[in-house]
C-alpha cells in the first residue's frame, strides 16, 4: 500500500501552548487511520491542518506526493465530516449533498446519478427532501457523510462524528461506518477521544498526548505492546508497576513475581517499569498469612473487577464471571506473562 497522506515534522503553537510539537505521520491509501487522545492533545489541531483551515509554523503536509501545506481548504481534494455535522439548515438533504458537486460544475445527469447513489449508500432515499431540522442525529450524521463522500475526496476527515450521539446509536453507526468504508475505499482519518471507537474501527491508530505522537500501531499491538505508560493507561485499563529484573521475569516492589512474555529479556538487576493488564491476573483463595485483601468488587456483567490492596500496592484485576470473592477476602495473586509489557520509563 502507498502512503497517501504524509505529515512531515509539523508544529503548531498557540501562544505558549505547543498544540502540535514536531509531529510526523504517514497514512496509507485506503486505510482507516485514527488520531486518538484526550482533549487538548492536538488531534483536532492536526485535523484542521489536514483540512486546510489552519497552517503549521513548521513542517509540511503531502497528499499523494504533492505538497498541500499552503493549499486552502476549497482547493484540497479532502473533505470533512464536522463534529456537529454543519449541515446547511436552509437546504434539503439532496441539496446539501449537491453543494460540493455543483460548485465543481458537474453536469446535471452526473449530479443526479451521484446523489442517488450516495442517498442509497447512506440509506436516506426516503428523506432526500427533508430539511436537516427534520432529521434524527444518526440521519444528520449520514447526510454529512454523503455530502463529503460525493466529492470523491482522496481523504475523508472525520472529526468526532459520533460524539453527539447516544451509546446504542454510536455502536450501530460504528458498524455502518466500517461497512461504508469497505464500499468506498477512501482513506479515512478519524479523530476521537474514545479509545473504544478507535480500537473497533481503525486499521491503525496514532495515540497523541500533549501535541506529540506517543505511538502509531494497529489496535491489537497498541493494546498488547504499549510503547509508553501513557498509551498503556489510555488504551484500556492497566496496572503500572515498578520492579527489578531477575531470571525469567521481574520481582515487583511488593514482592509479586511477573513473568516476562516470550522474546522479552532484561538483564538481571535492572530496574523496570511494567504494564500489567487486569484480565491477565489470576485471583486465588489465600490465607491469613497472605498480604492481599479485596478492597472493592465491581460487577460488570460478563466479568467482575476487583481492587486488591496489600503492601502499599493497589491492583485492578478482572476475572470472567460473577463475583467469586467478597470484600475483605484474603487472596493470592498470579501474573500471566501475556498481560505484561515493558515500558520505557524504567528507573526514572
Amino acid at each position: 500500500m502507498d502512503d497517501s497522506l504524509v505529515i512531515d515534522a509539523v508544529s503548531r503553537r498557540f501562544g505558549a501552548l505547543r498544540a502540535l510539537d514536531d509531529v510526523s505521520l504517514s497514512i496509507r491509501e485506503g486505510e482507516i487511520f485514527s488520531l486518538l487522545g484526550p482533549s487538548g492533545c492536538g488531534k483536532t489541531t492536526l485535523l484542521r491542518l489536514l483540512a486546510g483551515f489552519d497552517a503549521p509554523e513548521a513542517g509540511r503536509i503531502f497528499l499523494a506526493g504533492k505538497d498541500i501545506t499552503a493549499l486552502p481548504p476549497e482547493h484540497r481534494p479532502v473533505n470533512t465530516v464536522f463534529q456537529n455535522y454543519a449541515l446547511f439548515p436552509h437546504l434539503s438533504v439532496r441539496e446539501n449533498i449537491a453543494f460540493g458537486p455543483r460548485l465543481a460544475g458537474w453536469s446535471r445527469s452526473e449530479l443526479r446519478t451521484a446523489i442517488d447513489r450516495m442517498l442509497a449508500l447512506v440509506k436516506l432515499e426516503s428523506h432526500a427532501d427533508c430539511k436537516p431540522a427534520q432529521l434524527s442525529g444518526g440521519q444528520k450524521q449520514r447526510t454529512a457523510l454523503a455530502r463529503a463522500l460525493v466529492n470523491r475526496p482522496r481523504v475523508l476527515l472525520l472529526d468526532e462524528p459520533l460524539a453527539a450521539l447516544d451509546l446504542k446509536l454510536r455502536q450501530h453507526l460504528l458498524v455502518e461506518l466500517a461497512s461504508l468504508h469497505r464500499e468506498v475505499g477512501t482513506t479515512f482519518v478519524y479523530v476521537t477521544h474514545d479509545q473504544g471507537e478507535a480500537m473497533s474501527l481503525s486499521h491503525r491508530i496514532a495515540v497523541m498526548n500533549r501535541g506529540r505522537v506517543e505511538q502509531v500501531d494497529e489496535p491489537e499491538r497498541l493494546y498488547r505492546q504499549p510503547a509508553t505508560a501513557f498509551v498503556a493507561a489510555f488504551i484500556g485499563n492497566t496496572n503500572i508497576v515498578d520492579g527489578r529484573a531477575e531470571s525469567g521475569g521481574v520481582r515487583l516492589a511488593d514482592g509479586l513475581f511477573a513473568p516476562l512474555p516470550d522474546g522479552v529479556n532484561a538483564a538481571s538487576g535492572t530496574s523496570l517499569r511494567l504494564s500489567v493488564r487486569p484480565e491477565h491476573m489470576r485471583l486465588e483463595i489465600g490465607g491469613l498469612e497472605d498480604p492481599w485483601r479485596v478492597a472493592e468488587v465491581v460487577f460488570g456483567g460478563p466479568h467482575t473487577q476487583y481492587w486488591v490492596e496489600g503492601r502499599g500496592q493497589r491492583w485492578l484485576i478482572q476475572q470472567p464471571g460473577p463475583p467469586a470473592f467478597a470484600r475483605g477476602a484474603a487472596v493470592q495473586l498470579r501474573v500471566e506473562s501475556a498481560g505484561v509489557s515493558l515500558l520505557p520509563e524504567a528507573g526514572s
Partner: protein
Amino acid sequence: MKHVFRGRTTEWLLTTPSLLWLAIFFALPAGLILMAAFRPADLHGGLGDGWSLAAVHALADPSYPALWFRTLWLSLVATLICLALALPAGYHLARLPRRRQGVILLLIVLPFLTNFLIRVFAWKTLLHPDGPLTRLLQNCGILSEDTLLLYNSGAVLAVLVYVHLPFALLPVYAAAERFDFCLLDAARDLGAGAWKRFWSVFLPGVGAGAGAGALLVLTGCLGQYVVPQLVGGTDNEMIGNRIVQRAFSDRNLPEAAALSGVLLIALLLVLMAQARKRRHSAREAGL
C-alpha cells in the same frame, strides 16, 4: 401550579395585553386615519360632517405619480445600501470577542442619544457649500466649484442611510450572532469561495434578520419628510412632505389621510407577504 401557563384559555390571557396594546395604539388610530380619508374637509382644517369621496378622488392628482415614484426608489435604494453595509458589518461584529461587540454596539446606538433633528442638521452643516467636506473635496480637485453636495437626491439618500443604518444593522447582528459559523467552514471544505460562502450560506442564515432590518428601514424611509425637507431642497420632495403640506399648510386633513392610507395599506401588504413567507419557511423547517 405547574399547569397554569398551559392551554388555550391561558394562551389568550397571556396575549391579551399585547393585543390590547396593538388595538389601542395601532389598529384604532390606523382605522381613524382611513376613515378620515372619506370625510369632507371643513374650513377650519378639521373634518367636516358626512361622507365624501373628494379626498380619494384627489389621489389622482397628476403631481403624485412622480412623487410616489421618487419616494419608492429613494426608499428602496436606501434600504439596499443599508443592507449592503449592515451585512458585512454584522458578520464581522458577530465574530469579534464578546467584550468588543458590546463596545461597538454601544457606539452604534450612541448617536440615538442626540435629537434626530440635530443629527440631520449636522449633515446639513457638513454638506453645506461652505462646509468642511465641500472645501476638502474642492481643494483635492475631486469636486468642481459649482457642484453642490447639498440639495440633491444624493444628499437625501446619504442622510436616509445614515439615519436608518442602525435599524438594519441591529437585526442583522442579532441573526449573525446566532449564526453557526461552522457552516462557512463546511462550505469552504466543499469548495466554496468567499462570495459563494457569503451568498449561499451566510445570507440564507441571517435572512430573517436581514428581512426584518430591511422592513424597518423601508418603513422608516417611506414615511420620511424631515430629511428631504432639510437636505433635499425643492426638487427632492417625498410623499411625506406632501402629507405634511396637506395637513398643515393646505389644512386639508382628508387628503393627508388619504395619502397616509395608501402608504399604510402598501406597507401592510409588504408585511403580510413577509409573514406569509416566514410561516411557509417555518413549516418547511418542520417547526
